[in-house]
């Protein structure tokens, strides 16, 4: 199962991919902003995308909207280092399935993946 990680921090993407590998998900792709995310999403068709809500340029809500327009069956998990309830609700209203607080850890990530990975 392919997983996309969208975050403007290269360091965060690297650690997130390492964490995904540790919990048994090896097929990962990365993107740093809206344009790259949509390009990679269109090409790779990941089943799950972890999308940081605060990106340079267009926001995570806009990324979510665009991804679901391409593939409505994709699972989008919003990520942020702050819990802004309005932002989370906007994202869920747009179609994101879940939310993950950054920094994350194996327990939280495994629970989200167990919920949405099949």
């Amino acid at each position, binding site marked *: 199962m392919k997983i996309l990680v969208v975050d403007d921090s290269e360091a965060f993407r690297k*650690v997130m991919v390492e964490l995904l590998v540790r919990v048994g998900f090896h097929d990962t792709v990365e993107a740093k902003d809206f344009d790259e995310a949509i390009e990679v999403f269109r090409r790779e068709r990941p089943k799950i995308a972890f999308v940081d809500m605060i990106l340079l340029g267009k926001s995570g809500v806009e990324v979510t909207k665009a991804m679901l327009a391409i593939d409505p069956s994709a699972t989008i998990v919003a990520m942020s280092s702050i819990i802004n309830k309005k932002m989370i609700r906007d994202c*869920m209203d747009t179609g994101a399935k879940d*939310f993950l607080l950054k920094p994350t850890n194996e327990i939280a990530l495994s629970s989200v993946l167990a919920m949405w990975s099949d």
Partner: protein
Amino acid sequence: MGFFSKKSDVKKSGAEAGLGITRKYNLAGGKSYVVEESPPDISFDAFVNIISTTSGDACKKMVGLAVSRQHPDLIKQKYGLETTPIYWLATRTGPEVISPTNLGILTHTMIQFIDANPCSVILLDGIEYLVSNNDFNKVLRVIDQVNDHISQGKALMIIPVDPRAFEQKEMALLERNMEKISAKLETK
């Protein structure tokens, strides 16, 4: 007397609005959990996640009380908490402040909250600060007393601990009656 005047301050807490997200930490009620970490990110994530989600357990919705060295305004802002009571461990005065040397009020605040809210979760952050202001055994006694109340009901308690701040024997004593949570790798 200060100890008793504090009694009326702890009210039945309102529940945080649900966010419709996954319950990521399935911690059983009636137990206390020690999380070896610094900073206390996993503990706060678990606390906020539990009080912002629902589960199919006996306690469908849980309410929380947090005690921390971090200022309540910072915690509210970062974690979007609106109704959860947060107490600041500090040597200041104020309605949301508990002095680190007043272990009686601290114990009483937590126990009264558990009694008023059977489906509750307590986050006790800052035990290193408590130990630096008191004898370790006194702090351990606070935890044991609250833990006794926890184990009689459905509430649960989360205590982040920086293992670098404690001797091996002290860590063993802390973990004696609690379950240990370890998240092997954290993203930064």
